[in-house]
Each structure stands twice: as structure tokens, then as C-alpha cells.
């Protein structure tokens, strides 16, 4: 090869690579593919593979890593709703949530209806854990609360129940449902029984030793430490035990799930 043809070859490579890169989404038709229902189902299969693999690997109920007080984030980012607002919630906040009730019902033998004071009187667990947002950032916080498994045992969950659904006081409307109409913006979440009875899964009422503040979910929030941040529902007022969540809201098991995110958020 002569030098000139080498130069031409280099220029050709650069142009070719540029073309490939420049047309990334156009050449692959990525946007068109993303809009296709059949292709979406293919991609969604990976969530099942991940969930089954992690369920298998985490069969022993392994704990999420715990951290030291020195690791605490000085400024734990508040994401999603930072204040649910509205007359009802504002009224609760003004009275320090003394009248807030947590209802546990659905597929249980003994429904519960607990005040904040009653929750604080129950056996508690304190843990310092890392909160991973689906966006990519992480913050470390200390949480104190009642293990959810304890509440579910007290309520005597019936064996056919498969999910715990958390209904929240915050409304995050504005984001349309994936491929559909705007669904009610009421925040809700759901987890399976393996995570519901996991020892680190808490209904937390305190953060870093102080009562939970409004930005972080006052007065009660979920901690489900082996999953991403959007699973950790804030402002929880009702836990319903169900065998199926298809009839709830848009049917995907959570506010962000209805907007295209994975129900199993272990990755």
C-alpha cells in the first residue's frame, strides 16, 4: 500500500465510524423498535431473567450491606415528592401526625389499624443502608422502624397472598403512563413476600435518629433495601395484601412501574 492509499483508508475508516456513530439510533431504528409492542416484550423478558436469578441467589435472605455512622450522607437527597401537600396531609403535619393511621388489610385474618404511637411502641430495628436511585446516584441513611414481617405476622397474612401493596399520601401526576393515558398519579408500590418478610424491610418512622421529616416520607415510609429507590414508598398509610395487582391503578404494581420501569428493581 502506498502512503496515499493508507491516508485514504484512514479517512475512510473515520468517515465510516462517524457514520455508524452518527446514525446510532437511526441506523438501528432504536426509537422505532422501542415503540413496537412485540419488541418491548422481547426486551422485557430480561427483567424476568434478572428477577429469577436474583431470587435464586438471594434465596437465603442475605442482608443488604450496612454502613457506619461515618458513612452517612450529610445531605440525603429527597427525590420524587418532597411534600405531598393538600389540606389533609398539611393538617396531619401540623399536628405532628398524631392522628396518622397505618392500615394493614386485604388478604389478612386480622386487619390492623395502628397509630404512630402504637408503631413506635412495637419492636424496632435500626440500620444504616445505602439508597440507590434508578437514576444512578446513591445516598447513605440510618433508618429506624418496625420490621414489615412483624406487622404481617400480627395481621396473619393468608397463604394465598403474594404481594404487599403500599398506598401513599403523595400524588405525583404529570408523567404519562407508558404508551397510554395519564393514570391516577397517586403513588403506590408493591413487593413480593420474599422481600416483605426480609429482616431489613421496615416501615420506618425515623431517619438518622430523628423523626422522619416530610421530604423523606413522614410519618411512615417503606425501606426495602435490596431494591432501587422508587420501591421505597413514602407517606405510607395503607398496606394491602393481595394475590394480584392487575386491578390496581394501571396494573403494573407501582407508580413508576406504570410508567415503564421494572417491577423487580434489584438492578
Amino acid at each position, binding site marked *: 500500500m502506498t502512503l496515499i492509499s493508507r491516508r485514504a483508508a484512514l479517512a475512510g475508516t473515520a468517515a465510516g465510524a462517524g457514520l455508524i456513530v452518527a446514525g446510532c439510533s437511526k441506523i438501528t431504528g432504536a426509537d422505532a423498535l422501542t415503540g413496537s409492542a412485540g419488541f418491548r416484550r422481547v426486551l422485557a423478558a*430480561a427483567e424476568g431473567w434478572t428477577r429469577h436469578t436474583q431470587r435464586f441467589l438471594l434465596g437465603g435472605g442475605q442482608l*443488604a450491606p450496612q454502613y457506619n455512622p461515618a458513612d452517612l450522607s450529610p445531605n440525603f437527597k429527597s427525590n420524587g415528592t418532597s411534600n405531598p401537600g393538600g389540606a389533609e396531609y398539611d393538617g396531619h403535619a401540623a399536628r405532628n401526625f398524631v392522628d396518622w393511621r397505618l392500615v394493614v388489610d386485604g388478604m389478612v385474618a386480622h386487619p390492623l389499624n395502628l397509630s404512630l404511637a402504637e408503631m413506635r411502641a412495637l419492636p424496632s430495628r435500626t440500620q444504616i443502608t445505602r439508597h440507590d436511585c434508578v437514576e444512578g446516584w446513591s445516598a447513605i441513611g440510618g433508618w429506624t422502624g418496625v420490621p414489615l414481617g412483624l406487622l404481617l405476622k400480627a395481621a396473619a397474612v393468608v397463604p394465598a397472598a403474594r404481594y404487599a401493596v403500599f398506598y401513599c399520601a403523595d400524588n405525583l401526576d404529570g408523567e404519562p403512563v407508558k404508551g397510554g393515558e395519564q393514570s391516577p398519579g397517586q403513588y403506590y408500590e408493591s413487593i413480593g413476600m420474599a422481600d416483605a418478610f426480609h429482616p431489613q424491610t421496615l416501615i420506618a418512622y425515623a431517619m438518622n435518629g430523628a423523626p422522619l421529616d416530610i421530604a423523606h416520607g413522614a410519618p411512615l415510609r417503606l425501606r426495602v433495601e435490596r431494591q432501587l429507590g422508587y420501591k421505597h414508598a413514602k407517606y405510607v398509610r395503607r398496606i394491602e395484601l393481595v394475590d394480584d395487582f392487575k386491578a390496581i391503578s394501571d396494573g403494573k404494581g407501582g407508580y413508576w412501574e406504570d410508567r415503564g420501569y421494572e417491577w423487580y428493581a434489584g438492578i
Partner: protein
Amino acid sequence: MTTDIQAAPMRPAAGPRRDTIYRHAFLVRLTHWVNALAIFVLIGSGLNIFNAYPRLNWGKKGDMFDHAWASLDAVQTAAGMRGVTTVGPFHFDTTGFLGWSKADGDFTARGWPQWLTIPGSQDLADARHWHFFFAWVLAINALIYLVWSLSSRHIQRDLWPTGGDVKSIPRSILDHLRLRHPVGEAAKRYNVLQRFAYLALILLVAGMIFTGLTMSPGFNAFAPWMLDILGGRQSARSLHFIFASLVVAFIVVHLIEVVLAGPINEIRSIVTGRYAVPREHGR
């Protein structure tokens, strides 16, 4: 070098045909293309995911209140919005490309531009679906390749450098800089820099999977020691990005070498397996 001519099969000296060898086994060709597709999608969807939090922190934790060693920001200045790329103490104005670029005709704050991401529109949920599906494809493909390559001794025989290879490093570097490619007998085997490059890619893909899994809160509960090795989840995220950048560097060099060494012959060899050995006086 007369040895090349002697090594070639006996043919009429003036004949235009070249010595053709069967260079790439079927499994190498198959896994090469699956790998190429998976990495292409993983880079594009990875950049879309990156845009949801276009900063890189180091350590166990990191959010917008913590120090970022690199970031792609949209910054309000006296001259209007600008895209600012920060790496360590250095700031670069990257308006139009990084931080602040056009999407669907309008300027918008986004780390990586629309034309580089999969999907093009900023959509974390969809990008994650693309990313994790093709992460499975990458991992299964890599496993098949590794098991086959080790058991058939492809890695030991064709990729692991011999003593002679190691001695030839300085000359091979000079040859590469002069854009001079091996011919004849020497072209039938991978040269030493090629061997290091392919071995490095195997390590990089392993590193991508390792750092990717370390970002998973579920996997952290199963294997917390991975966090300890990497120095925390945000370190894992930074390393995931750095390794991906090295994969991109590999791809650039790989494509340049394919073009320089004769793109038709090279591409044919990774499609059909047949490779025409360049002769000393081939032109």
C-alpha cells in the same frame, strides 16, 4: 523475505490467486458478531442511562451534593446556556455536544447528545430495558466464547503471546506505527499487539460485567465483597464508565486496523472464515 514465497503452496508464479486459509472458527465468528451487536446497543443505552445522572462520583455514595470527578452539565452563563464538561479540575465548553445539545431541533440539557444514545429520546425506563436485555446477551455470549476458547485451546494457542511474541513487541510497535502489516507466514497468526488487544478486550468485558453487577443492590446482598474490591457503588459506576471508554478505544483501533489491513478480506474472514494471506509481492 523469500521464506514467505516458499511457505506458500506451489502455484504458477504469475497466478493472481492468493493463499487462502481458514482463519476463524464458526464459534469465533458467531460470538464476534453477537458481541459486536450487544456492545453497540450497550454503549448507546448506557449513555442514555448516564444522562439520568450525568455525573461520576467516587466511593460508597454520591449524589448532587457530593464531589463529582467528572460531569456533563448545562450551565447558565452571561452568554446563555452552555454545555460544560468537567473532568477533575478541568472545564471544557462542549455546547452542542455534551451537556447542552439539540434534541428534536431544540437545545436541551442532556449529558450525551440524542444521536449517540439508544433510544434517541431521553428515556431512562426504555434505556434500562435495552441495556439489561443486551447485558444478558453479552454475558451468555461471553460465557460460550470463554468455555469454547479455553477448551479448544484457542486462547492458549492463538491469543496468549509466545516468548517470541514478547521479544517482537518493539518491532511490532514500529510496524504498527508505520501502518505496515504482516504478510505471508506471519499474517497467518495474530501478531503480539493483536494478541494483547484481544486479551485486553476479554478482560474489559469481564470488567464491564463485574462493575455492572456491583451497581445492583440485589447483587450487593449476594456478593458484598464486590463492593469492597471496587471501593463502593459509585466507584463501580465510575469504573463501569471508564472500562466502557476503553472498549470504545478498542473498537476505534480495531476498525482502523481492519481498514488498513484490507477491509474486504478482513470482513470476509470474520463472516465466512476464509482469509486470503497477503503475499510479500502481492501487489
